[in-house]
């Protein structure tokens, strides 16, 4: 259970930036989230800071939480160095779509070991930055669509790929040979997105 003072502080900070939180009223039903309202709540289910300008103080306050299920930051603007404040928070989903994330920012993301689902679409990192994600051993879902990354970079995620069930690589330079390599390594996909990539009918027409 989170400290009531911390919960209030996080709510105020998030709302001051134009975002909102969803809370868990009953810890016996952790999947049931709702808006705070007047009812007492014991934990935060999700933090929504999409399309917001987020300053350091807000990240500092969020870092006081022990746990939050999901953090949505897509289309927001912030200093990527402030992502270091999220390293200590236990979270399952982190949405960092279209936030101008570079390789340096990915270094912080790679330290959020608890994360199971990461959205990293439409950013500015490269193959080199993907090295930082290699220790995310709990990852089940990864979205890398619309980034300037190649098959070479994606295959560097070797151990991570092995545990993934959901992979979205739409509009990247992913190719046939990489798909064949991935088929050798992956346990099972439930979802695969390879739209607008170099994957073809017969394969072998393009190289990594």
């Amino acid at each position, binding site marked *: 259970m989170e400290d009531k003072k911390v919960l209030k502080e996080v709510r105020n900070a998030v709302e001051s930036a134009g975002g909102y939180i969803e809370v868990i009223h009953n810890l016996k039903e952790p999947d049931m989230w709702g808006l705070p309202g007047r009812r007492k709540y014991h934990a935060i289910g999700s933090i929504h800071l999409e399309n917001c300008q987020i300053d350091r103080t807000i990240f500092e306050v969020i870092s006081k939480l022990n746990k939050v299920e999901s953090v949505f930051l897509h289309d927001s603007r912030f200093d990527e160095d402030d992502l270091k404040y999220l390293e200590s928070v236990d979270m399952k989903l982190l949405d960092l779509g279209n936030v101008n994330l570079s390789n340096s920012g990915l270094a912080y993301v790679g330290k959020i070991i608890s994360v199971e689902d990461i959205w990293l679409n439409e950013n500015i990192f490269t193959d080199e930055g993907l090295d930082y994600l290699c220790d995310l051993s709990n990852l089940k879902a990864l979205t890398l669509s619309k980034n300037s990354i190649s098959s070479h970079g994606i295959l560097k995620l070797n151990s991570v790929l092995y545990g993934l069930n959901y992979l979205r690589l739409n509009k990247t330079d992913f190719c046939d040979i990489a798909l*064949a390599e991935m*088929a050798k390594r992956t346990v*099972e996909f439930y*979802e695969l*997105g390879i*739209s607008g*990539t170099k*994957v*073809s009918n*017969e394969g072998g027409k393009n190289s990594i």
Partner: protein
Amino acid sequence: MSWGFLELKFQMRGVKIVSSFKRIEMLFISQLDIDDDALKDFSQLKRLYKLILSDTHLTDKGVGLLVNNKKIEHLGLDGTIITDKSIQNLISFPNLKSLNVERTAITKYGYEYLKENLPNVLVLGTEI
């Protein structure tokens, strides 16, 4: 997993290798340089409920290869070259909830027929 299966899996090439992901439920393979041949083994994907094939070279023959994927709920065929010949196959998916046939060669009459025969399905088409 048997060695025979592994051997078969690694003989596959290109997008066809997706057929080896037996548990796949959602597949997004739009805007690829692929045609009907890519779907040859998709009938093995028994859990598939969402398939997006927009802007590929899929024809009526390809739609015919999907009719055994009975679990399909969402089918994206916009921007393909399918015609009214696919209509009987398209109305045979028992669990269909949404179908996109925009920018295809399906006629206004074909589109109306689809809407009439799929009353519980969200059908998107081009009304010419």
